[in-house]
């Protein structure tokens, strides 16, 4: 999975935090920044991301693309 990273479209995020819990390397953090729907969104730290796809699997709102 070398080189693969998670990219988040935070306009779809509802701030549920399931990906934050699922990420095995704590590369995703919950922020207090709001998206246009008014949800507090997450942020991905690309340096820490190992591209495992756990966030894609758990996210109920299809925020992630792992490529």
């Amino acid at each position: 999975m070398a080189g693969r990273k998670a990219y988040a479209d935070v306009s779809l995020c509802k701030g549920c935090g399931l990906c934050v819990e699922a990420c095995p390397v704590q590369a995703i953090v919950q922020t207090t920044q709001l998206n246009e729907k008014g949800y507090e969104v997450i942020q991905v730290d690309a340096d820490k991301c190992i591209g495992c796809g756990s966030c894609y699997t758990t996210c109920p709102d299809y925020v992630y693309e792992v490529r």
Partner: protein
Amino acid sequence: MIQTLRKPDRIVQPCGFCGGCGHGVIQRLIAECLEELGISDRAINCVDIACCFWTLDGMDLDGIAGPHGRLPAVATGIKKTRPDDIVYIHAGDGASYTIGIAETVHICLRDVPVTMIVVNNGVFGMTGGQMSLGTTLLGQATTSTPRGRNESSNGSPGDFLQALSQFDFEFAARGALYSVKEINRTKQLIKKGFQNQMEKKGFSLIEVLSACPTNWHLSPVAANKRVEEVVAAQFPLRVYKDRGGMSDG
């Protein structure tokens, strides 16, 4: 193998569910299975009147919504007239095990080659979180049992999947969504349900334990933990029945 993970093409709208709801994951698992099996073009989505109704708009598939709890009857009709199409039901536990239990029993008895996915979150989600007679756990606070479900006045829940699996149909299994591992396992169960239908075997019933953070008044993470520790202890995750011989996990 480096593989890109991207939302399936058949999901065409942002999710309308509450944050942390399991329905979004189930919708994606269904779309992924249909895509991987190459049957999206001939799939017919039969949705019930409840939260799963959103998938009618959210997915670019042929779809139909029937009267509440009667989707097994609707799907039976579609499958009998269009036997080459892939017909699946996406319904909740209230529809399948409470108001529509007669239809669920009949589709099991008829053994129609349809795939039925029951989302069990233990409450009537869309109407405001009332107690579901079949699946709300004892002690669980709901809108209609604010002090917790009480055995003497509200009765006890039951394992409907186990009860139904004594009938002669193809496949019955229960999955959950509280971890990446369980989501992947649930996907295998749903895929197996569709494969049974492609091979013109009998009826497949897959129950998925899902969280309803809004009506449980828990955070999504705490709701998933409750499914893992409390709900899955009451409703075991395993394959209940498989005429084709899948191992009893």
